[in-house]
């Protein structure tokens, strides 16, 4: 198991490096730059600015400088927001984003797994039909639309919850954003769980377990859930990355102080440092998540470890 983990970690390193390289060059090769503002800057000022951020160097040199700094954990300065470097902006916004995404992730995963199991065990009976409908709505309504509808219904018509904005430490302000993020995630998980649970309940080994007279609860808990979780687990990595990227939009909609705000503004202003820094951060998180998922998968399915 340890050897397997080590191999997986090592194989993630070149992927991360290549991904950083791709992002760097895509951003830099695109037309436009951080200082193409509304009013043109005087040439001398522009030259100074470009020199300050090493933009006057050949692209390859800039790349090497960037990688060298990156290895030391330095994501470089923001080129638009004066006096802030990228790490500072991330450390301001990211903890909030992570909190929102993680709470949605945990809530949605638990609900999704349980809902999927209930639907599978009651296949083609009313709890199944109700759950399938709720799930379908969660899957097809895009998050910005769901946000708008929930704001309208709970925030305006019913007035139960704040429709947007942020007061430090206020849980009610988080209810709608987390719901918007969590619903589709829970929906996808319960779809996966329902499908795989139905499949597992029809397998020979579940029949064997039933033939042993273990009782419904033990059959489900010990024999069915673990194998049924396999497809769910392999979705958790991508699922978390959808949640994190999705939270960019949700923060924007609800006016929450996460990293989404900085990212969208930075992209519009061609602030290379912030865009690249955020993208790299997300990429590393996704790679790390995939790694964790692989390891959990190996634990769930003993066969994987020997491949």
């Amino acid at each position: 198991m340890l050897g397997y983990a080590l191999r997986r970690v090592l194989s993630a390193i070149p992927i991360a490096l290549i991904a950083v390289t791709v992002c760097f060059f895509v951003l830099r090769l695109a037309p436009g730059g951080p200082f193409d503002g509304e009013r043109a800057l005087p040439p001398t000022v522009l030259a100074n600015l470009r020199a300050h951020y090493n933009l006057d160097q050949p692209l390859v040199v800039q790349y090497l400088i960037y990688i060298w700094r990156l290895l030391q954990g330095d994501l470089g300065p923001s080129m638009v927001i004066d006096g802030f470097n990228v790490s500072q902006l991330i450390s301001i916004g990211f903890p909030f984003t992570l909190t929102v995404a993680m709470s949605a992730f945990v809530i949605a995963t638990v609900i999704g797994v349980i809902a999927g199991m209930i639907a599978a065990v009651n296949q083609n009976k009313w709890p199944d039909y109700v759950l399938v409908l709720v799930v379908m709505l969660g899957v097809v309504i895009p998050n910005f639309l769901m946000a708008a509808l929930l704001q309208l219904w709970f925030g305006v018509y019913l007035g139960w919850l704040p429709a947007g904005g942020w007061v430090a430490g206020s849980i009610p302000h988080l209810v709608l954003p987390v719901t918007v993020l969590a619903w589709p995630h829970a929906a996808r998980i319960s779809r996966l769980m329902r499908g795989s649970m139905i499949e597992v309940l029809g397998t020979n080994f579940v029949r064997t377990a039933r033939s042993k007279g273990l009782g419904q609860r033990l059959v489900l808990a010990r024999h069915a859930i673990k194998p049924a979780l396999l497809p769910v687990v392999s979705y958790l990595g991508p699922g978390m990355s959808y949640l994190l990227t999705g939270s960019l939009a949700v923060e924007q909609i609800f006016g929450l102080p996460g990293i989404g705000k900085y990212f969208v503004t930075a992209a519009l202003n061609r602030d290379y440092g912030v865009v690249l820094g955020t993208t790299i951060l997300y990429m590393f998180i996704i790679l790390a998540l995939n790694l964790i998922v692989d390891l959990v998968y190996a634990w769930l399915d003993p066969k994987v470890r020997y491949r």
Partner: protein
Amino acid sequence: MAGITGKDEVLTQYARRLETLEAPKGRSLTQDALRRLARNKAAVISIAIVVFIVLAAFVGPYFVPWGYSEVDWTSIRKPPDFAKAHYFGTDQNGRDMLARVLQGTQMSLIVAGVATIVSVVIGIIYGAVAGYLGGRVDALMMRIVDIMYALPYILFVIILVVMFGRHPVLLFVGIGAIEWLTMARIVRGQTLSIKEREFVEAARAGGAKPWTIISRHIVPNLTGPVVIYATLTIPEIIIAESFLSYLGLGVQEPQTSLGTLISFGAPVAEVLPWMLLSPAIVLVTLLLCLTYIGDGLRDALDPKDR
């Protein structure tokens, strides 16, 4: 592009089943699946609704009394009014919402269609080349696909759109350019299995060039996967497009798309709810139907699953 339809799963399964069959039977597998789909009531109704929406979006604008950018100064911010033929009401500028929703739907469908075609073309070329050449080239090309899978898509689209401007055509290309990964995987698997078959061996022995073999023998065998891929990809792209438009990165005024309409409707939903609800209902109906069709396809391909 959150994989609302479980595209990867469905297509991989389909490709695996194709591989275990002989070439001519591959076609009958697709026919079988379509026949089974025709028996699925939810899917058939969904297909009918989708066809209706598509027709309405492309033909409808010629029949509605107002143009999508035409201003009716006598009704600004008005709820649905049948006497003046504003069946969905008007927006703040006095433009007819029905005309705008039809135009927006049309734009969303065009974006989805073009992006799907772009991704299918890239996917087929990439996958066929990797599969046909095989060996180290194949390994390298597929490694690149793996890496791109690891990148956060939506960030990438945002970057592309921001950097290359906001022209709708670029939006199509940008979205299509990152959607091709799944298609490439499927095509590669297909190519690997097809190229070992006798008829391809024979063509190669007869001196046919690789490109001829790919276009004559491999691409025609991909009809089934392409149809399924397109069905499953279109809703994902509609969502992606509407999301970008919502952020203000997509389709620009006076043209509009469902996402743009929703983004304009959302802030004023409290006082002008029809501005949010009319595009929202069309979008949700369209996506719901496409998802049911996707589900129907999956069941049709894997009948044991029911």
